[in-house]
């Protein structure tokens, strides 16, 4: 699902790429830029983020919806713009995390850009900050070093507009030409309970008395006529929920002496 998420261009999407110091997510970001984007406009906010030299290209205070929209309008033929932020962590150093979340939400909904892809280094921030940004994201890709030395592991979580959640875990590696190869899809990491291989001990074994039935005994047991066994029609009639009133159904047994004549007929009162 990693490739689908990286190539997905649904409007209003916000893709969050999380990495740690053990494996950098910038390679994945670069591979995305090289494969998916057609024209790249680069705005350098790294050299002079606070505008100290007076003529910096992009300062960190310009990270608002209005300024980004004006920047986009300045570039010719801008349609279906994807905003790629290499390292939101640098922005989070200068701004309040709540304000950054609000600006990201404004960018997501504003209509100036179609998709926002953001890289965050999770070690640099508190868990609450990363959690808040994750809460805003529609897809989250977490990269970590692979355990078996094959490549890196990417855990992808994707939330569709209807609320459905999809998760996946894949091993990938990035080639020389910055394309991504998926090695294997690890099966969904369900934590299955390891059922220890205990054979069910039969409690009727090893007893001083016999609890089992032999075949003849079992047949005799099944042949036994139980009391209150009714015919099939009567059972189904009783099982249907009736109108609620009680009824008395009388089926005369073999022993019953159901005489239609009133025995008190010969009384002379």
């Amino acid at each position: 699902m990693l490739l689908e998420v990286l190539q997905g261009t649904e409007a209003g999407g916000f893709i969050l790429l999380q990495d740690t110091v053990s494996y950098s997510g910038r390679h994945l970001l670069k591979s995305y830029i090289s494969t998916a984007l057609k024209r790249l406009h680069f705005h350098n906010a790294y050299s002079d983020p606070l505008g100290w030299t007076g003529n910096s290209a992009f300062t960190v205070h310009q990270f608002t919806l209005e300024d980004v929209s004006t920047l986009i309008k300045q570039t010719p033929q801008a349609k279906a713009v994807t905003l790629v932020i290499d390292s939101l962590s640098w922005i989070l150093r200068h701004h309040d995390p709540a304000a950054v979340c609000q600006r990201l939400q404004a960018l997501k909904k504003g209509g100036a850009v179609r998709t926002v892809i953001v890289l965050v280094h999770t070690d640099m921030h508190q868990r609450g900050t990363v959690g808040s940004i994750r809460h805003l994201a529609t897809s989250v890709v977490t990269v970590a070093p692979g355990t078996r030395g094959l490549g890196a592991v990417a855990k992808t979580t994707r939330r569709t507009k209807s609320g459905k959640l999809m998760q996946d875990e894949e091993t990938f590696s990035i080639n020389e030409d910055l394309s991504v190869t998926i090695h294997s899809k690890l099966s969904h990491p369900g934590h299955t309970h390891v059922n220890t291989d205990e054979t069910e001990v039969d409690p009727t074994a090893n007893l001083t008395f016999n609890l089992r039935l032999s075949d003849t005994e079992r047949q005799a047991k099944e042949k036994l006529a139980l009391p209150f066994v009714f015919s099939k029609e009567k059972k189904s009639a009783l099982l249907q929920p009736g109108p609620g009133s009680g009824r008395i159904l009388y089926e005369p047994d073999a022993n019953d002496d159901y005489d239609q004549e009133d025995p008190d007929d010969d009384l002379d009162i």
Partner: protein
Amino acid sequence: MAAPSKSVGKSTGDRLSCNTTSFQKKSRSKLVSIPGTRPSVQNGQLIVSTGVTSLDYVIGGGLAVGTLLLIEEDRYDSYSRMLLKYFLAEGVVCGHELYVASAQDHPSDIIQELPSPILDDIASPKPVESQTKPCDPEGPDTMSIAWRYQNLPKVQTALASSSRFGHYYDVSKTMDPEICQAARCHGFYLPEHSATVSSSPAPPPTATGQSPMPEAYVALLKNLQEVIHREGFDGSLPQTKSRNVLRIGLHSLGSALWGDDLCCRDNPSHGHALTTLLYGLRALLRSSLSVALVTVPSHLIQNKALMGRITRLCDTAVALESFRGSERETNPLYKDYHGLLNVCQVPHLNCLVCDLPDNKDLAFKLKRKQFTIERLHLPPDLSETVSRVSHGGLAGAAMLGSSGCGSAGNKHLDF
């Protein structure tokens, strides 16, 4: 206050039958009769339905007018959002007025997504358990001796009260636009208000020197107070028009989009902002005919003491934990349910004790026509190695099934 009568023999599975009475207090016409509300049988308070009948049962009959219901959101805010929509939909169907505030989505989008009511609810929807299958003596499930009990559910899991209060909704359809238009709705969308907020001067810090609330909360409270006063919910208008209840839905308070860094930092700079807001909100609710539902993303709040304070400041508090995306999704114990529901707090309004179903392990499932909340029951564990210590806690009980406690099970039964 008349004591509620218990109807004997009515409930098969409920041990406490206090909520399953069909007793309706005969009201002298001094009490206000507002559509969609009724006096509670427990303490006489005027209660409204939350939109989900099982949730009404779990919190003691319904939500009292003038109180605040807190819902702690699940991880991806899917089910808490659904509960908010049920609450608002119930308001539309009962004819109440609505007030929706959100920093994330526009209130009109939320109103358009409300589920449509199932309007033939004179007959209650058929419970799933009692399916009348034709009696088949050869079937594997039929019982030969106890066949009269064949169609009854094996465990009474569904919670219900006998008197119906509240409506059912179909989640797959959205409400008709005509019905939505008929309802009066006030909205508060924070990005629209923040333009006016930033122009007004920031409120001065309080005398104790603590940081003021973020402007968003101040704006919200002011707007709400103005709406309540203007529409006459606090009794300010003369008695010309009939009384109505205002249903307030506040989505995701405390999240970063409201400008509050409660969820972002371990030591938030406005530590008391949300608690002050809830205190002010509760004061507004107590003095007007309104009821509020607030959702808070508690899984993002790092400071647990703060979450405790927030719970104490609300009247009723319910926490949702969904299995989606977590490892519990594949646990066979939870395969029938979508998540766990925990009732953290229930108010004692004008009474010393409140009467609640005493089962604490509740799980919910969102079906198309119903949001059911059921008791989570474990099947009896018959393997030999299980220890027969009875203790609460689902995690402990789930683990007992797979690992043995103490010595290995005796393989020989000796008499």
